């Protein structure tokens, strides 16, 4: 994976949204509406995640007539693993806190 990715709530929202599409390609505006992020926050994050190999990007093959092809995104296997690791770690921490409270 190379460089590490900081775990923020926004990053997790984007990664979960991509994971929920179960391998299907998503376009930028779809991610914006699903995560509630603004374009100024989403695109730098997509760039970072793509640079670190957590998601892959491709151009739409058959855009509607009169419109340029859109950029599409989906999780890579590395991205899926990263999300799984982060969620497992978070669940482990939550379990420890719960046991501590009891």
């Amino acid at each position, binding site marked *: 994976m190379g460089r590490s990715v900081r775990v923020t709530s926004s990053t997790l929202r984007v990664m979960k949204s991509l994971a929920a599409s179960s391998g299907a390609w998503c376009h930028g*505006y779809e991610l914006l509406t699903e995560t509630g992020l*603004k*374009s*100024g926050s989403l695109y730098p994050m997509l760039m970072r995640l793509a640079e670190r190999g957590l998601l892959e990007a491709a151009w739409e093959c058959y855009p509607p007539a009169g419109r*340029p*092809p*859109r*950029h599409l995104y989906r999780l890579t296997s590395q991205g899926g693993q990263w999300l799984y690791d982060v969620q497992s770690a978070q669940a482990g921490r939550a379990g420890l806190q719960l046991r501590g409270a009891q």
Partner: protein
Amino acid sequence: MIVAAALLLVVVTVGIVRGRSGDGLATDVLRTLQDLSSAARQEWITAMLAEYDALDDPRTKRRFARGCLRAVVLRAGPSDRTAVAIRGVIDLVAAGAVGLAIFGLVHYPGLRAGWAWSIEFAGFLAIIAAYLFAAAHLSRLGSPAARRAGTLAGAPAALCGWWIAQSNGGTIGFAAMLLVVLPCAIAAMIVARPQAQAGQAAIAALCGALSAGLFVFVSYVATTYATLGPPTAQLLDEFTHSGAHDYRSWAVGDDLGGAVFLLLAVPVLATAAGLVAARLVTPRAQTFPAP
């Protein structure tokens, strides 16, 4: 901030020169930045613009374009060896400029009379910060050759700074100031010529403008400290009427004001000269009427 504003003004101007699309200012600036960016960044800006085109609601489109523009302007692109070298040169010369200003304040106590100097010094630091911000972004835009040519073209401004300080702002000084911008214009022309690359020429002009502004400042101020400028009859007369008591502090203060003016004026002039020169050698795109 003024340099950043000038940079934005230039980008907008380039956009206007390219022709307004009717999609709003943010989108026009994005399209211009797309031309100026490196291949990796171009792909992302293209993605943003394609997404913009797919949206229907005008309000959503405007908000989307503004967010994208903010993302592109605030996030520097990937670095390369030329970017590191340019940042090194600009940071070094900027540090020299701040060092010279601090030396002046320490060495000439008359400069610290009253409270206005602290505001002026804060303004000067803000200008330097704007230079560094612009350099951080410009050093990663466009082709390495364009950035290199522009930054090198700004270096002869050091000679002009010395000449301006020697001439005490006379006609020769103004001629020297015009000569500061000439290498930037030539660099932009050279970059624009082979493949009609107006965007790359703009990058060369902007890099030249930043480098020229800092080099001329450092050279002008260093020469002033070394020589205090030849005290002409006119200067002595102005000093007598100024009510100041210390000629050296007064002369240095006057020259520092001139140097800050150069720091602001040179980038604007050099950029304008570079863009005009590039425009002159770039053939206009042929247009064909729709059938």
